């Protein structure tokens, strides 16, 4: 354990070997992986029962996770890290990368979230995808995703984490583009893929740097040797990891893919793009606490990025009429809160994870609720075509309302406890950051109330021939469970349980009091949210909502609808320049070299003869480029060595 300034310390990863129930750890990953293999390889023979198998296997993983969780609760703090060595992946000389799984309090909570919420979403999908001819394949991809995500959070080294990281990326790509007949879905899948590669670049560089600095990629080796590296090295590592986290978690400036990703089926949006995969970036940062604690500058950057993302996402959420995109903007903003917590260091890690869990509950709940609404509205996603749905779909409405109350932070609901804690720690450490978090909470109240009003209240604006009806029990069942979790999730904070539980991973923090009393912070937060809710009610609750989006709107709304110009910024800064680079290279390869020759420099008569004999316009240019290359090589050698 390292002591840090101010009495804080971060623990070293030092697991004991897996025995007892923990010997089943590998099964947690293996079950859904087997499901993916059977469903994808088995082809149409598994069509009839594929979705049932695909649902049972994650439930199996959940049961194992639950048993392990209960037995880890019975252990001492110091004995809560367990490692299972599966086999040696890469071994050459001293280079040794094991397929090792690490079960500790952090991965324990993730396991429960992934397999628990994952199982509920699988059950829901049985109903949601009932009429899709490719349902079996859908479940195969979902299982693949669950397996990869579990690998991500269970690996004991960065290389295994990278394996899961790429795996969830692949599954996400396949699932966003699942309805491939829609060109928009294919384009969205591609966009997600490309932007994520930018983040992956950060992760691969970081892993290589770990390897070069520490001779290993294992968490235990790196965490125990972290003190030997210089602060600059740690800052570079931290920034690279942050880049990776931004890509996966849709944080500024790599956020543009998340809204497009809503093209995927709604259960996918709930599972991958709300509850689990997009939080992998937060996991990465909390898991790498031994890097960030030694790199205060990198932590500052994390906080800045988080603050920007909170407001950026909220802004988008305020302006979108597509219910899923409004929720996606909200996801970006809420992950901003988690990143903020993670950036605040030892004092914030546990609350980041706490908010991650509660968000997993209420956001999955609301996405599935949105899916249920869409199910009843003939897959229309435009909230301007909704209104007054609460009567037609009472269960969906009530469960959605629980999620709504949780996300805005209504006192007593899960989101209240988790967001409040992050705001409190932020205020303690830096007043500006705290105010940004508070402002974000107010805006959250505004856009969620807008969404709620436009969908469930106000007058009917339904399209002709649409008759909303409540979804089948297989869909509402998971909604009820998630709604209960959204209400009760705050129980994890009772007696600071989650903070104590995560202490072996996140370290011990010195408790500092915020500048104003804790109760006052909560009260202010509630008031700010109430203002947001009230404004939304005045704007949307008291006037008729037009069926067509009004055009004469302020710049703020326009920018929000355009996702704060994220795509335009990307196009200008990245896409167009690289397009020019490519065409430039093409032209150089094809024409310029040739053109130079036609221009006729001397000493190439011989080549011209060769070219004539070959009766081909190109070989001469190839030969010229060869000659030019040779000249450059020789001149470069001389220049470098003789100066």
């Amino acid at each position, binding site marked *: 354990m390292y002591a840090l300034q101010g009495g804080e310390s971060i623990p070293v990863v030092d697991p004991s070997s897996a025995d007892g129930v923990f010997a089943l750890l590998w099964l947690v990953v293996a079950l859904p992986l087997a499901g993916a293999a059977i469903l994808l390889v088995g082809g149409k023979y598994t069509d009839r029962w594929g979705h049932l198998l695909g649902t049972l296997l994650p439930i199996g993983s959940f049961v194992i996770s639950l048993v392990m969780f209960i037995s880890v609760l019975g252990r001492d703090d110091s004995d809560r890290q367990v490692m299972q060595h599966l*086999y*040696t*992946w*890469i*071994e*050459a*000389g*001293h*280079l*040794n990368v094991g397929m090792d799984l690490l079960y500790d309090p952090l991965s324990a909570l993730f396991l429960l979230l992934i397999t628990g919420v994952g199982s509920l979403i699988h059950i829901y999908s049985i109903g949601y995808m009932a009429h899709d001819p490719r349902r079996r394949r859908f479940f195969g991809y979902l299982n693949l995703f669950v397996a990869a995500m579990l690998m991500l959070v269970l690996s004991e080294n960065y*290389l295994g984490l*990278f*394996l899961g990281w*790429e*795996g969830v990326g*692949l599954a996400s790509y396949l699932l966003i*583009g699942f309805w491939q007949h829609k060109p928009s879905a*294919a384009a969205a899948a591609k966009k997600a*893929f*490309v932007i994520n*590669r*930018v983040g*992956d*670049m950060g992760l*691969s*560089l970081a892993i*290589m*740097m770990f*390897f*070069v600095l520490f*001779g*290993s990629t294992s968490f235990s080796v790196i965490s125990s040797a972290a003190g030997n590296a210089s602060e600059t090295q740690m800052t570079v590592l931290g920034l690279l990891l942050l880049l990776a986290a931004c890509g996966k978690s849709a944080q500024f400036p790599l956020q543009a893919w998340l809204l497009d990703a809503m093209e995927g089926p709604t259960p996918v949006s709930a599972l991958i793009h709300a509850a689990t995969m997009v939080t992998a970036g937060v996991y990465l940062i909390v898991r790498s606490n031994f890097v960030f604690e030694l790199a205060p500058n990198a932590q500052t950057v994390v906080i800045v990025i988080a603050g920007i993302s909170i407001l950026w996402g909220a802004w988008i959420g305020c302006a979108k009429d597509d219910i899923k995109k409004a929720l996606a903007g909200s996801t970006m903003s809420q992950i901003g809160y988690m990143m903020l917590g993670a950036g605040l260091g030892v004092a914030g890690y546990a609350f980041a994870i706490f908010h991650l869990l509660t968000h997993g509950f209420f956001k999955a709940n609301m996405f599935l609720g949105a899916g249920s609404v869409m199910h009843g509205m003939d897959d229309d996603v435009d909230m301007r075509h909704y209104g007054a749905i609460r009567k037609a779909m009472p269960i969906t409405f009530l469960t959605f309302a629980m999620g709504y109350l949780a996300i805005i932070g209504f006192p007593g609901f899960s989101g209240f406890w988790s967001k409040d804690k992050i705001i409190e720690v932020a205020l303690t450490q830096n007043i500006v950051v705290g105010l940004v978090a508070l402002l974000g909470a107010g805006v959250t109240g505004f856009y969620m109330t807008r969404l709620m009003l436009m969908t469930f209240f106000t007058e009917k604006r339904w399209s002709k021939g649409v008759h909303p009806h409540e979804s089948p029990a297989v869909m509402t069942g998971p909604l009820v469970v998630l709604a209960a979790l959204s209400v009760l999730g705050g129980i994890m904070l009772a007696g600071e349980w989650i903070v104590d539980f995560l202490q072996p991973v996140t370290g011990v923090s010195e408790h500092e009091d915020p500048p104003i009393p804790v109760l006052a912070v909560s009260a202010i937060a509630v008031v700010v949210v109430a203002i947001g809710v009230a404004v939304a009610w005045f704007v949307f609750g008291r006037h008729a909502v037009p069926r067509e989006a009004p055009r004469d709107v302020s710049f703020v709304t326009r920018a929000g609808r355009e996702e704060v110009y994220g795509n335009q910024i990307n196009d200008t800064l990245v896409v167009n320049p690289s397009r020019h*680079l*490519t065409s430039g*290279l*093409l032209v150089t*390869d094809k024409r310029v070299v040739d053109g130079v020759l036609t221009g006729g420099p001397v000493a190439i008569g011989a080549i011209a003869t*060769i070219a004539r004999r*070959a009766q*081909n316009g*190109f*070989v001469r*240019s*190839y*030969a010229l*480029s*060869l*000659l*030019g*290359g*040779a000249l*450059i*090589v*020789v001149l*470069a*050698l*001389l220049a*470098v*060595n*003789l100066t």
Partner: protein
Amino acid sequence: MDFVKPTIEYSQLWPMLVVYGVACAGVVIEAFVPRALRFGVQTVLAALGLVVALGGTIWVGSNLDELGGGVARGAIDVEGTIVVDGPTVFLWGIILVFAIGGVLLFAERRLEGGVSAFAGQAAALPGTEAERLASTRGLEHTEVYPLMMFAVGGMMLFPAANDLLTLFVALEVLSLPLYLLCGLARRRRLLSQEAALKYFLLGAFSSAFFAYGVALVYGFAGSMGFAEINEAVRNDTDNGVLLLIGLGMVSVGLLFKVGAAPFHSWTPDVYQGAPTPVTAFMAAGTKIAAFGAMLRLYYVAFGSDRWSWQPMLWVIAILTMVVGAVLAVVQTDMKRLLAYSSVAHTGFLLTGVLGVQQASELSDGQVTSLQAVLFYLATYGFAIIGAFAVVTLVRDSGGEATTFARWQGLGRRSPLVAGLFAFFLLSMAGIPLTAGFVGKWAVFTVALSAGAWPVVIAAIVCSIIAVFFYVRVIVLMFFVDGDAADGELAVVTRPSLLTSGTILVGVAATLVLGIVPGPVLDLAANAGQFVR
């Protein structure tokens, strides 16, 4: 002047001699065995010869003497001209494995309806009566087997050569048969002949640079031997310019063979024009042999003057990766795409060449450059030979269909073959749990340990661009509906056991090297250092 009879260590060289022997026997067979029997005899003889040579290589490899306390294993043979050491044996092994794959692909006759992929009568002008006659009579050139065996012999000699003259001879022995083989395609013969001529002209041009460079280095060092050159470089006082120009020109010859930018321009044309089995064989074999030779030349002969050539290689490596990756993005022909991707892989391999060479300079747990490059070559060879083998299967009425438009929706029509192809592409892209990932990981880390971080960053950016174009092909196969309006769609022709066996071995090796790369990495590690 006394003539001393050279001592030749047959016990270590015999695997190579077997290959040359089979090649010569093949020529004799062409002259004496009746036409009807030639195909069978040549195929069996070539395959047997390669298998025997492979067995011999393993035997030689397990009997190498240890030198310098186990740092290196092997011996310098034939009066200092050939070295049979750990790296040589490793390279021989993988060259022979891919050569066996090449023979199997050469012998495939089901795809063309009973004849091989080679021209019936190469001398007949395309489009003439003679050509039609040759094709209706079912003629075929069985000379391809001896040609290939000579090329394999050259490939084996290339990385074993321990002086510049042997290196030059090996270069020509491996190149000349390949020039010929490239021009022997049965279909699209003009394209094939054009490719062969281009390859030959440019190859001759680069050989001229190489030969001139050899002369200059000789002028500097007063010897052709690598050890003597190294000695001269170390004691160098004034004649630096001569050495540098010579080094540059020799490098040009080698960089041309591996297809590094700006010497890459032949690659797409030749890969596209050559008969696909030849492309598969030479894409794997030539690259392995040339990188082996390059490693020995740079590390042994110019090893003590590393800083004179490394900056140049930095630039070449970055340029090669950028050119290969970026231009691959805009390709619309499968063989050209694989060619540009092979250029990009050359860049990744060059990144590995830049790494740390001495085990003593490394901290615990790191591989040396040599091991990383050797491993990468093995992983790349399996993927590329498998990928080209798949290309031979995807056909329409005009033979192999290599344009992207024909490949649309192939995953729907033939999920297995398209899946295997996708797997090879993923390995080349370096996705975890495939061989390519471990290979990339190895070469990038050695380069990073040597401080070549600008190259590594370029390499990672380029590998990301590369993922993009590989995935584009996968999308094309699985997610795009084949639209018959664009013309005929390709279908997968059922091959004989020869091609499917090659593909399956490639898949199995790619998978195994990705999941448990340990044994092969160990093998590369046990190869040890070069014997100087």
